[in-house]
């Protein structure tokens, strides 16, 4: 391991993160400014669209530098744990954006793709960042082929999602009062809230991390062995967020002060086995609370749903263009996903685990994602689902993708657990 190279690598990643943030802001100026500018909005969009694209592209260059220096410095392709994989996914989303941008040359694609990349890059930083040497199961050239192709396919789904979300903001009429329109408005707002909760999660994790917060709990588990002897095992868990929920039947060992909290507020129900489940529950509750607080503040300032505020800015965009871009992006991603997440996965599984398919949760969820997008394509091609319906499918599809990538590792158990935290 080459530590100076790895230090450079982390710095490059940070630079990429800030450039992506800047790119997002710039895209915001592009779209919002075009509405208010006194000059020709088309020329304005073109000029600012180019500036935003160049900034984002610089972010991508920095991101690529991070990737390859980490590869050389760490000795293996950086796609082997959660931190590496998620940062790689963000890089692939940026690559997919570059490809789609080359085809359609529309600045609007960047408006939602860049913030998505920013969130995903920030999310990757939640996980431990050290280079971990590969365990024997991962020592194969298939790690390079399978993971990268699958991630690229998923990245196109992500860009399709970002465009579909923009399309929904464009086509859902926030002034209309019919029950159908209201339902659409409500669901768009729920997607916005989910986004804010994600930000709430990141804010609380990084906030408490910067403050160096820590609380330690010890849980005692008594089991009776075959020999009839009591066997007491203690599990220790470190919380990096203040304990709203502490593990079932556990004692505080050490707790930093936070608004006078001396112990967990609630105890996790007994059926949530293990101290890690309690820690994860606590994190989820924290994210929701923090997210809702942020959301409440936003609502107080805006005095309108977020969707209703964003909608007017999208009026200049042709919804049919968004529909086409979202669909085409998914259609580009589908073969890549099939190849990477199913075909290459089967070949590797056959070589490493002696069977091409084993109904492991990760495998099943890759299949679920594939079935989902297969249904999407059939509904669109043969049943004529397009416009709002298809956009909703693209949005839900990305939730399925994210569960496959992250949810399975954090919630379900299986052979892919090495990718976990």
């Amino acid at each position, binding site marked *: *391991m080459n530590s100076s190279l790895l230090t450079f690598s982390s710095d490059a990643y940070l630079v990429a993160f800030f450039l992506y943030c800047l790119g997002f802001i710039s895209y915001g100026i592009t779209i919002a400014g075009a509405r208010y500018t006194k000059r020709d909005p088309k020329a304005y969009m073109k000029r600012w669209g180019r500036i935003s694209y160049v900034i984002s592209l610089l972010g991508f260059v920095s991101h690529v530098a991070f990737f390859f220096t980490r590869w050389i410095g760490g000795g293996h392709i950086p796609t082997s744990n959660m931190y590496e994989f998620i940062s790689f996914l963000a890089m692939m989303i940026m690559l997919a954006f570059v490809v789609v941008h080359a*085809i*359609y040359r529309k600045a609007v694609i960047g408006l939602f793709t860049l913030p998505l990349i920013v969130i995903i890059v920030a999310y990757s930083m939640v996980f*431990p960042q*050290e*280079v*971990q*040497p590969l*365990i*024997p*199961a991962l*020592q*194969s050239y*298939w790690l390079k082929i399978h993971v990268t192709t699958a991630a690229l396919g998923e990245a196109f789904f992500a860009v399709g999602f970002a465009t579909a979300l923009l399309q929904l903001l464009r086509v859902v009429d926030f002034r209309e009062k019919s029950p159908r329109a209201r339902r659409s408005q409500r669901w768009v707002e729920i997607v916005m809230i989910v986004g804010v909760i994600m930000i709430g999660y990141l804010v609380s994790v990084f906030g408490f991390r910067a403050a160096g917060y820590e609380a330690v709990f010890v849980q005692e588990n008594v089991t009776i062995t*075959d*020999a*009839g*002897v009591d066997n007491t095992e203690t599990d220790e868990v470190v919380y990096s967020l203040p304990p709203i929920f502490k593990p079932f039947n556990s004692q505080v060992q050490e707790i930093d002060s936070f608004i006078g909290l001396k112990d967990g507020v609630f105890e996790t129900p007994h*059926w949530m*086995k293990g101290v890690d489940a309690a820690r994860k529950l606590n994190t989820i509750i924290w994210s929701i609370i923090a997210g809702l607080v942020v959301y409440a503040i936003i609502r107080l300032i805006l005095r309108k749903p977020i969707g209703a505020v964003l909608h007017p800015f999208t009026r200049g965009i042709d919804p*049919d263009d968004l*529909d*086409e871009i979202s*669909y*085409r992006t998914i*259609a*580009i991603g*589908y*073969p890549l996903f*099939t*190849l990477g997440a199913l*075909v290459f996965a*089967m070949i590797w599984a*056959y*070589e*490493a685990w*002696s*069977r*091409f398919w*084993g*109904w*492991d*949760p990760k495998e*099943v*969820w890759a299949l*679920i994602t594939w*079935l*989902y997008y297969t*249904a999407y394509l*059939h509904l*669109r091609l*043969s*049943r*004529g689902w*397009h*416009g709002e319906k298809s956009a909703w499918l693209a949005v839900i599809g990305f939730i399925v993708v994210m569960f496959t990538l992250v949810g*399975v590792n954090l919630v*379900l*158990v*299986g052979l892919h657990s090495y990718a976990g935290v």
Partner: protein
Amino acid sequence: MLSFQNTKCECGHQNPVGTVLCESCGKPLEEAEAASTAPLEMRYDGAARRSQKTNPSIIDRVWNFFSSVKIAVWLIVITLIASMIGTIFTQESAFISFDPDTYYEEKYGWIGKLYYELGFSHTYETWWFTTLIVMIATSLVVCSLDRVLPLYKALSKQQVRKHVQFLKRQRTVYEGAVVGDAEEWVAEVEQQLKRKRYKVKREGTALLAEKNRFSRWGPYINHIGLIVFLLAVLLRSVPGWAMDSYLAIREGETLQIPETNYYLKNEKFTLDYYADDELPDELKGIPRPKLYQTDAILYECTADCDDPLKEPVLEEVSQHGIIVNDPMAYGGLKIYQFGYDDTPKLAAVKPVLVDKTTGKTYGPFELSMRNPQLNYELGPYTLELHSKYLDFAMDEKGEPRTKSDEPNAPAFIFMLKGPGLAEDGEPYMYFPRQIDKEKFSQDAINGDLANRFEIKVPSMEGVTFAGTVSTLNIRTEMAMPYIWTGTAIWIFGVFLGSYWHHRRIWLRIDEGRVLLGAHTNKNFHGMRADVASVLKKTGIDVEPKSLDNGGNRA
């Protein structure tokens, strides 16, 4: 939908029942379609599908059911939801030995019990899940056949001059005056299209340009691939086509591979861990395997294979260092590194017998865990082996038993005979491992005898440990070539259908005005760009977007 019977088009062509657009000139025939002005439904080029028969018989009805894409999507969605449910709790197949009757309830409570009772603990092996897969396979076959034949026919006999309605109601349309001589202009358009690698047919001032027709077969090719794949999976259930067994071999041992004529020797097992300087700070001190490898030799038995009295005659056929990503392969047999057990296990000890009253020691004697002698003569005393437990435990009744064949907690009961002891000997229980001796209270079991005698290991000298056990997975998968063939066809079709687009441009000139219609199965953006570029080069400047006639965005 099939209310009209007169299927003869005004151009004189006789169309089959169910035809949406005349097979010859493209005029909309179906009543609803003919009355509308919206862009045409161009799916399968408006040809009649097999499923669109009048007076369907029972077979037709079954065919029609499976030919519906709506049904196909429902099947996909139901399979998707079923697959999701199957990932809620760990499936039975993930365990090697456990009792599902109690496991799910103990681990997850009533909901786990319900999950188990409903059969979700083996979702993917249930009859209804298999039925779903079979239905999807049927749907794949029927849907494809229902559409590919009419589509093939329609595409192979295309007319150049299409009906005005057909052109006007395409999704990409251009209408305008011709600049200069009509014939010359069409010839110029032909040149430009050919430069874009279109195949062009002309009939006077009417023109048909087409490219990448092959991409239309993509979906059908990928469906064929999936069918081959699913059939290959079915083949795995043919006896002898799929074998799956495990072999735990200790270093140095040779074992027969069950149900075969092969023997496998674990020549050497290597286990390497990462050194601390290779690990990041947070992982230092935690063993992290770097490599585990079984150097194995495969033998084939050539004679005396089934004779229990003779040693089988073995002939070496293959040698390989088996690691996780590199199995041994020989004649349809594949041997994979599955796991290992490196917990140190005693092979033999050299204890002595101590007479506590005199302080005299007798021995030492060699005590092998697996092959102990039945009698040990130690000075005036004799140890007679009464019983042996390799993995000692007590059952519910308090009777001693052994949990496994591995020397995890070896225990011996000797009958101690000699001066001052009962004629038949007195039982003495001996645990060679200090930890077991305390755990199972050896002295308490031996009672009074423990005060007079002790068997103990005076030093580590002579204590030997057994080699690491390597667990190997032995597989035969005769269906693999077919599975990979199906997969290859499938992915080829997916790429063919997704990354190439079938584009067609029709054009006719009537009284100095050009009418152009264009159609593609995917990517209308690219289609419009092609048309605009050709028009531009022939003197007509249009914005690509202005060619958009709306309609189905498939």
